[in-house]
Structure formats: C-alpha cells, structure tokens
C-alpha cells in the first residue's frame, strides 16, 4: 500500500504534478506539531498567572530592562536557573514559570559566557554594579566582559517610557493609568533614591539621570520576587533532575 504510494510513477508522482495540493499538504504537515504544542499552552494559560508576590516592573526598571536589551546582555547571561543541585548552590532557587509571567520579551538566554543573572538582585551593592559596568575587571579580575563606560555618562532617555508602559499594558501587564501617564516622573523619583544610595556607598555623585541608574534598578530587582518556596526547592534538589 505504502509502496504503491512511493514507487516510480506511484501516487506520489501525481501529487508532484499538482503544486497547489503539494503546498497545502506541506502546510498541514507543519501545522500539526505547531497546534499540538501550542494549543494547550494558550488555552489553559498555564504558567501565565504570576505568583501573588510578583509585581510588574517599575517605570525605571522598564527603562533599565530596555538598556539590558540594547546592550545585548542576554547574549552572554541567562536568566533561567535549572532545577539541578549545582545550579541551586551557585545561583539560588530555580526559576518558576510564574516568576517570568510578566516577561516580554523573555530574557532567559541560551548561553552562559558569564554567570546566570536570574537572582543577581541584592547580591551586590549598587556601587559594585556601577564599577562593574564602567570596567568589569575593576570588580572581577580576569573577567572577559566588555566595558560599558557610556552608561555612566549618557543621560537616561525617558521620553518614550509612557509609550512603552502603555504597550506593556496592552500585552497584559497590570499598570494603572497613573503609572503610565507619570512614568517619567516615577522613574526619576526612583532614580534619585538609587543615586543617593550609590553616593552613600562611596560612589560618584550626579548619577541620578544617567543610564546606569536605570540598569542598576533593573538588575537589583532580578529574582527578588515570587521565587519558589524553600520547600519546593528542597523537593527539587532531592528528587528532580540528574545530580552528577
């Protein structure tokens, strides 16, 4: 039966004379896998409900996230801790779907030329990040990370922030009108706080309107909300995943 189909001058031979039929069959072939893999995920909204503790980004963090994307940090740093003992030891609790529910675009990454950053928030003082971006080798000798000194000199561009927050709200982030409309002012207020803390830590003054402050705000909040509970982590490190 199958042989009748594929033999020389068999049935397949006829389809080869019908481009339209051939194209339709090809489309059907690629749609089967697509539908099976996506339909359940979109229908049940699995993993799309954020944990109660997860807040969407503040306006300043949105600006910082844009800088993270602009500089292509995700090319070398993942933000996705896998449920292996060695990763829990090195980076902290594994990343849960609910933690990433507000992430658009997702920044899980595919390569760790540098370490994972999913839980880098709070790990270092603000000033460490400032110095690290200015010259990575000043804080991490032997680092191969590029320097980003312009982040300390370029002024934050907050003109588009309201528009970005509005777009983010369209794709499902629960921002209020107040947050959207006053995005720039809210961002400036948070930046002042962070800049003051940087000065307290012995860092340079007048960073409040510099790009670095937005990036620090974003980095310092990574992984600080909605992590898996200790109990879940314990379960995963006991039973989940191959431990080498």
């Amino acid at each position: 039966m199958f042989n009748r189909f594929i033999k020389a001058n068999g049935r397949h031979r006829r389809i080869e004379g019908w481009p339209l039929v051939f194209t339709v069959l090809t489309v059907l072939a690629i749609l089967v896998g697509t539908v099976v893999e996506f339909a359940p995920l979109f229908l049940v909204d699995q993993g799309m409900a954020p944990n109660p503790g997860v807040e969407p980004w503040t306006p300043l963090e949105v600006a910082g996230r844009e800088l993270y994307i602009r500089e292509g940090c995700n090319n070398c740093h993942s933000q996705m801790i896998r449920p292996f003992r060695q990763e829990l030891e090195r980076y902290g609790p594994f990343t849960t779907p609910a933690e990433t529910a507000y992430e658009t675009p997702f920044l899980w990454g595919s390569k760790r030329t540098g370490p994972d950053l999913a839980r880098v928030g709070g790990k270092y003082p603000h000033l460490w990040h400032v110095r690290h971006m200015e010259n990575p080798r000043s804080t991490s000798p032997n680092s191969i990370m590029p320097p980003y000194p312009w982040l300390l000199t370029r002024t934050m561009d907050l003109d588009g922030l309201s528009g970005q927050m509005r777009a983010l709200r369209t794709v499902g982030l629960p921002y209020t009108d107040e947050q959207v409309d006053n995005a720039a002012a809210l961002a400036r207020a948070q930046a002042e706080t962070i800049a003051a803390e940087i000065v307290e830590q012995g860092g340079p003054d007048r960073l409040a309107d510099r790009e670095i402050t937005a990036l620090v705000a974003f980095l310092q909040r990574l992984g600080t909300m909605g992590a898996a509970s200790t109990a879940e982590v314990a379960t995963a490190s006991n039973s989940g995943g191959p431990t080498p």
Partner: protein
Amino acid sequence: MADTPVSPGATAALAATAAPGQAHLDVFRYDDKIVRHFTLATILWGFVGMLVGVIIALQLPFPEANLGEYLSFGRLRPLHTNAVIFAFAGNAIFAAIYYSTQRLCKARMFSDWMSRFHFWGWQGIIVAAAITLPLGITTSKEYAELEWPIDIAITVVWVVFAVNFFGTLWRRREKHMYVALWFYIATIVTVAVLHLGNSMAIPSSFWNSYPIYRGVQDALVQWWYGHNAVAFFLTTPFLGLMYYFLPKAAERPVFSYRLSIVHFWSLVFIYIWAGPHHLNYTAVPEWAATLGMVFSVMLWMPSWGGMINGLFTLRGAWHKLRDSAVLKMFVIGITFYGMSTFEGPMLSVKSVNALSHYTDWNIAHVHSGALGWNGFMTFGMIYWLVPRLWKRELWSQRLANAHFWTGTIGILLYVLAMYTSGITQGLMWRAFDDAGRLLYPDFMETVIQIKPMYWVRLIGGTLYLGGVVMLMVNVWQTIRRAPKDLPDPAVAVPAISGTPAKDLVTS
C-alpha cells in the same frame, strides 16, 4: 533502489539549437542576471558576516577589542548571526532557487520586476539590520532581533518572492516537480508562518516593540521559530540546493526517488515539533520539553535520509572528487550535515542537554552546521555556477582547492576548540568536592580555564574567513576575464498543450 524518474541532468539539455519560430517549440530565455546578482551578494555578505564573527571571536578572550558602544560584543553578536544566516545563507538560497527553479520548470521566472524587487528589497533589509543592530535597536529574540518596521519589510519581500516562485511553478513546462522544488515549497511557506508567528508585537515607538507573548509562551514561540529557522532556512533550502546541484556536478542521477519522498515528508512533519528542546529543564512545562526531545531524536532518521541520498548519489563517481573542488565541497558539506544532525538529536536528550546547555558545545554544534553544511554547500554551488553564469572558466582550480583545505582545517579547529571548551565548562559547573560543596564556586575559574580555547577558535575562524577571501579573489579574477556581454541563455522546449493553469487543479 536507484529509480530516478527525473534527474536535473535530463531537463536542461534541450537547448537553443532549434530555430525559433517552429510551431511546436516554446522559445524563451532564463533570467541568469538575477542569479549573478544573488551570487555576488552571497559572497559579499558572507565575507562581512564572517569578518564580524572573527571580530567577536577576538573580543571574547581579549575584551580590549570591544571598541566602544557600537562595536561591543552584545551588539555585534546578533549582527554576526543575522548576517551569516539571512544575508550569506539567504542570498545563497535565492541564487540556488532562481537558477534551479527556472531550469526545473523550463520557464523564466514569473516576473522580472518581482525578481528585482526581491533582490534589492532583501539587500535593503540587510543594510537596515547592519545599521540598527549596532545602534542597539533589537527585540532580543535570537535570530529575530530586527524591529517591527524591518519585520514588515521582510514580510513584504517574502510575499513577493513567494508569488514569483509559485507563479513560475504555475507557468512551468514540465509536468512534475523535481524533489528540489518540494524543499523550496516547504521553505517558502514555513518561513512565512514562522516569521509571522514569532514577530507578533505591539509597537511602542518606531524602533521599539513588545511581543504579544509573555514568559513561558514567549519562550516556546521563540524556540518554535528559532529551531525551525534552522530547519526551514538552513536545512530544507540547502537540501533543495543539494538535490539540484550535486547530481549536476557529479553527472549522476539522485540515488533514490523513494528515499527522497520518505525523507522529505518525515523531515517536514517532524522538524516543527523539535523547538522545545532548547528549553529543557527551564520553566516551560515538562511535557513540552519532553515532546521536543522525542521528536528531535526521531528527526535523526529523516535527516540522515537526506545525507544518504546525497552521498550515495556519488556512487561510481567518487574518483571525480580528486579533480573537482566543487564535489569535494559538496561531500564535506553533506558529511557535516550528517554529523550535526546526529549531534542535534543527541544534544536534545535531557541528560546530555543538562551538561551541554548554556555552554560552548552549542556554539560548536551550530558552527559545524553553518560553516560545514551551509558554508561548503554554498561555496560548492558558487564554484559550479560562476563559470556557467559568466561564461568563463574558473580562474584557478588550485585556489579553489586551497579554499577547500583552508576552510576544512578552519572548521575542525573551530569545533574541536568549542567542544573542549563547552564540555570543560559544563563539567566544572557541576563538579562537587567530597564535602558536597561546589568545586569551582567562583564562575571566573571556569572562564579562565576555557580562555585558551577561545584563541584556538579565533585561529579556526580566521582560517575559514581566509578561505572566503580566496573565493572572492577567484571569482573576481574570473569575472574580470568574462565576456562583457552576457545575454540570458535562450532555450527551446516542446510546447505543452492547454494552459499551464490546468496543472494547478486536480485533474
């Protein structure tokens, strides 16, 4: 097994010997000018894309090579991947499709205007990418970094390309479509579906947008796209290229018609499922990752179906490799295809992936595919096409052979360095001491360990780029000696009765 109703060797020969005007003959000209355009663009962008690759390979062990804002690694890496995939491989695909489709359909391309629009539109998109990516304008989604206005331009150009291609099929003078055309069809429709599916976004300004998907959904959509960009941009069109140009160069019919049917349909059906293997052990649902893994392992067979059909086409013709740089390149290309399509399923297996994910092993894997398979299939095609397109013998066979050896040694150095580096780092990350603590708690220790391998990779990449320079010199010297006037080749084929459109419906 060796049943082959259609071989491309049989189709092209009915050349323009018959006098035009004879009632039972259709006389027309192939559009070879557009193929020359795409061929030159392939070589130019190949050089640019690989040069950027060499620069970022230098930046890794030598961060001082990050020369300021616009030329730092994070911005150049997407430029490198986009240039090699969409500019180098993209133009190569189009050269292959425009040359072979006309011959397999015994028809000129449907519309000269569309061919030109496709060519210049695509080059415009590449230039837009080369400007926006160093400026930091990016969506961050791998191999889909270009922002929404460029995405729309890609859609328009792709639609014009599709209309031009299917229009040519519609006007064909050959009843049956040869296997190369099946792969082109799969390429054109699937890339359209993938591009539209993954690029859905809400713009916030002209150069910024947010995907409509979030978190787990965005990850799954992205890797459904990302993996199938490999499948339908770097695999299926190159299989089509192989099915046309390899039998031509070897002057042998394709090994097995039946195998081509079986492996075409299974490849097209199975590939699309494999995306979630990029997300093993991440926050995506376990069932999705497992499904991706299972289908990836299944994919090994249809992939090797293509390799076997390619290599066995050379049965009885292996001695020709000695004198033919073209065949040498095709053979090494198909061999790398076989190796990386074995490696891919292996890497998708969860226990292997636990080690390999996030490491340079993946970098080795993609480069054995890109440099070995896509690169050498493209170079083989170019060395075969250039003397035919410019009506002039290739300037230097010796230089072409030198290109083959330089490139091959370059790939080997590259992948061996990255295997070593990837496996070393993967093992160090998971090493525990006797007390159950991480043996290398400082990430930096694992970086220092692999730095020497980054230098070896740089040497390998530079050699490969050196091969491309040899190609440029060889093609340039050939074209310089080519006749100034290159008229499109005229062809006469027996006219078929009735309207071509009849073939579109199931009669």
